[in-house]
């Protein structure tokens, strides 16, 4: 049984980034009593929805907000996120607060069946009753009901059966009370406690950043569960998931508290910029976090120990810059770098502040798995505009203008220059990564600045 469950979740979770609320069937009405709802409570609930990034999965392009319908094309068929507006027929209008809490924290639908575990209920289990209450009030009073049904899931039998999910849930989903106590007990410092609550709970960072075991359950749900927590290591939609722990080279070991705050607020920091699956997370979720919550998260991440304590500390080496500045292009890939990259990332690899990210010492460049850096070169990337950082910056895609060989050369160069000392990348590997190359943004969708 375990094997069948795991193969199902493999398909589910490898192909989607995290996320995906299960299908919630329409059920019999239990109406909410009509009373004055304070707007501050709705605002609080809205903030909880931002913290939890409900928007990411439950809204789809061209459909009303929170009406679901976001497609997840999986090898087993296509499933769609659900309508979580207060519409009684197609949404969650008939859910009582207890029904709602059970769905969010335990993954149990109103009809008793189990949600697909891409809905991060193992993380949401930690949400306090007060926060669940605010969230419930928001989804019933602050969101417009949308009487539209998401498309029907198209999953072939026997994988369409939901009962195996129950067993998975029994095995891996935490007990709500224990989860809450565990996260709450971690720290006496209220800032760190808040950071833990956000990272382990609503923020569900581990859904992507914690490696999963063979059963597809996260190997650790909290900082107390060991070094696997937020240690990264998997590849999702072509992007290598980096560690959020304190590894010096490949984690956040050299990121200051302010760097982490800026990154989550604006998608850009002097130490690196967001790309891939993290970009919509910043756009829909973390950019709306309060500054004090972002600082709490940064402080919490800072006290995680490195998963690999033996990583050689990164040290800047001026040799590369000196060679390039003296027109020594003998290193493999140096010519491509000078022609295509140095204008923005500079010969010294430092880039320019929050405009052009640094390559020297950037953890993403040095991870053992080169998927991300190869894919950025192949597909390009855009630092998205946000209300607090209105400018967008776009790196062009080189997938069509550079050969696999040239990309292998230049990525190897970047990985070895300026003290980065990561392993070179073969032409074969680049060719292979072409298969999983993310689509470049079409010109009409690129920012206008």
């Amino acid at each position, binding site marked *: 049984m375990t094997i069948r469950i795991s193969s199902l979740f493999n398909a589910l979770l490898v192909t989607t980034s995290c996320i995906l609320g299960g299908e919630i069937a329409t059920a019999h009405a239990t109406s909410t009593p009509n009373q004055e709802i304070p707007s501050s409570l709705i605002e609080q609930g809205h903030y909880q929805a931002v913290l939890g990034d409900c928007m990411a999965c439950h809204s789809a392009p061209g459909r009303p907000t929170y009406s679901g319908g976001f497609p997840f094309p999986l090898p087993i068929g296509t499933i769609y996120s659900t309508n979580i507006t207060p519409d009684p027929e197609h949404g969650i209008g008939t859910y009582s607060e207890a029904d709602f809490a059970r769905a969010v924290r335990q993954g149990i639908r109103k009809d008793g069946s189990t949600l697909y575990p891409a809905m991060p209920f193992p993380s949401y289990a930690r949400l306090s009753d007060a926060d669940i209450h605010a969230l419930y009030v928001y989804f019933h009073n602050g969101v417009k009901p949308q009487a539209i049904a998401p498309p029907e899931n198209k999953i072939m039998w026997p994988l369409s059966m939901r009962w195996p999910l129950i067993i998975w849930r029994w095995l891996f989903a935490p007990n709500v009370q224990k989860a809450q106590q565990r996260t709450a007990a971690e720290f006496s410092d209220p800032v760190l406690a808040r950071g833990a609550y956000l990272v382990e709970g609503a923020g569900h960072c581990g859904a992507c950043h914690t490696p999963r075991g063979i059963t597809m359950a996260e190997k650790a749900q909290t900082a107390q569960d060991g070094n696997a927590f937020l240690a990264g290591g998997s590849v999702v939609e072509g992007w290598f998931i980096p560690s959020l722990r304190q590894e010096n080279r490949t984690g956040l070991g050299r990121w200051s508290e302010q760097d982490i705050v800026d990154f989550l607020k604006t998608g850009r920091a002097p130490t690196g910029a967001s790309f891939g699956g993290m970009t919509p997370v910043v*756009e829909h979720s973390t950019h709306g976090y309060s500054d004090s919550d972002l600082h709490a998260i940064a402080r919490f991440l800072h006290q995680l120990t490195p998963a690999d304590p033996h990583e050689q500390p990164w040290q800047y080496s001026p040799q590369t810059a000196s060679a390039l500045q003296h027109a020594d292009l003998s290193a493999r890939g140096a010519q491509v770098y000078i*022609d*295509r990259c140095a*204008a*923005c990332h500079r010969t010294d690899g430092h880039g*320019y*502040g*929050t*405009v*052009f990210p640094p390559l020297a010492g950037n953890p993403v460049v040095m991870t053992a798995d080169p998927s991300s850096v190869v894919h950025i070169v192949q597909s390009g990337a*855009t630092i*998205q*505009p*946000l*209300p*607090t*950082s*209105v*400018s*967008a*910056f*776009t790196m*062009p895609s080189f997938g069509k203008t550079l050969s696999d060989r040239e990309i292998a050369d230049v990525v190897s160069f970047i990985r070895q220059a300026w003290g980065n000392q990561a392993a070179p990348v073969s032409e074969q590997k680049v060719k292979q990564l072409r298969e999983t190359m993310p689509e470049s943004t079409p*010109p009409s*969708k*690129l*920012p*206008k*600045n």
Partner: protein
Amino acid sequence: MTSSSPNIPPSHTDVLIVGAGWAGSIMAKELTEAGLSVTILERGHEHKTAVEGAYPDSIDELRGSVRKRLFQDLSRNSLTIRHTLNQTALPYRQLSAFLPGEGVGGAGLHWSGCQFRATKDDLRLRSVTIERYGHRFIPEDMHLQDYGVTYEELEPYFDKAEKIFGTSGEAHSVNKHITGKGNVFAPDRSDHFPLPPLADTFSGEKFRQACSDVGFHPYSIPAANASQPYTNPYGCQMGPCNFCGYCSGYDCYLYSKASPNVNILPALRPHPRFTLITEAQVLRINLTKDRKHATGATYIDLNTQQENTISADLVILSAFQLYNVHLMLLSGIGQPYDPAKQTGTVGRNFFYQTITSSRIWLPKNQYTNQFIGAGGAGVAIDDFNHPGFDRGPLGFIGGSPIWVNQAGIKPIAAATAGGGKNRPRWGSTYKHDMIETYKHSLSIDAHGSNMTYRDTYLDLDPTWKNVYGQPLLRMTFTWKENDIRMNRYIVEQLKPIAHAMGATRADFNMLEPGQLFDSRFYQTTHLGGGAVMGDNPQTSALNRYLQSWDVSNVFVIGSNAFPQGMGYNPTGLVAALAYWSAHHIRTRYLSSPGPLVPAL
């Protein structure tokens, strides 16, 4: 956050703006901040740094400088040109002498980045000339006028524009504190430049040293090319300039040259009260029957060829200088200028820039690296441009900065220039000369003022029409004695500098007495006047707030408002005048719409 929904034209807007260049974008930002709904109609299309400006395609000289990628499509609309009143004008069919922009950003996307303030005297040139030299010093047919606004009044708006543009430069005097650096002739400022000056190129460094040796006062040209990464007060970010040399005529792939696209529109586009409609050619501003009030504008949607009308309470004309005047004439805003009767103001006082470029060659052990450059990078002297420079014995009005503004020579331009004046145009000597010239020469410009005269003006052409069936604008313009004399004097002053630089050869270029304006060769896109500001409705189309004297809910922003030319590039003053006008609209006009200055 990316505004992906197409902008639907509203039927009514509080403010309708024509043109999405610097002036239009500044006005749109200011007036949305004031709580108004604002719609910009732009005749061209979007220009995205991430698409057209993407490296390395954007720095294709053939598409950029030669085929004029970012400039106006003259096959749809142009103007006609003649020298004198008795001639028949002919259409300007190829972009050559000057290059109006088209599309979002306008000329503010393809400009170089030299961003000057005006001198105190530039703004009250008639008054200071009379104070110093008497009425009779002014040539009879010269229309010398004051702007009606002083440097002191404009200072906060110069300062604001510099902070928005991320200007790199060096202040001389800040709140009366002398820094010991910068332009010793520059007026006092309320603050430093937001960024330090750009580094000197080798050519700039040589010029700086030589000017000091001769006794002149060199300074770094204020440049809207960011010397460092910068975030402006709107939260818009710029990358730093790397001196790639692709500024003028290009969209900067490093996001380091200030443009409306990079410095204003990112903060404006998400605004719910802001609409930008591209491919919208405005045909006319609609007026009430008595022609005293504008009701909106009619435009052609260039995608559907349908005419559409939008009503508006306030209309801002911020198209390129020529087309602001054209729209006023087509719409009947104000009275057209008549050079015979000396009546009317619309079209009056057209001017250009009296610019000549000279070239010197340095010894062969000195490399000028002309591929390096930035549009606003350079070293200038104002010894022959500043207020105190005595024109009396020289017998001309105006002046000229002299500068080495190495903006980056590209391969086709270098090959076209070859070995300089009167050198072979083909064969091995040409090749040899071209190489030597590219490696060892540099150019020095006399970038002088140009006055306005009774018979330099704009009106509607009686013969030629554009594709919309409207008469073309007609330019009547040629060089006049005052400006030729000024240019010849200034170019003479280059000679000791060239000598001090160790020049081994020099081509000194100056206007010849009686020389006519030649529209076939690129000079500069600094056109101005035609709807000028001032204190007298008999001689100016706009009051000192750039408001039409005749139609008080129309403001006309741009270099069209300058009564005559100055030695500096116009953009810095255009931006300051836009902020100045916007301030008075926000603080005075909106609470009580009507003339901000009573007509005499």
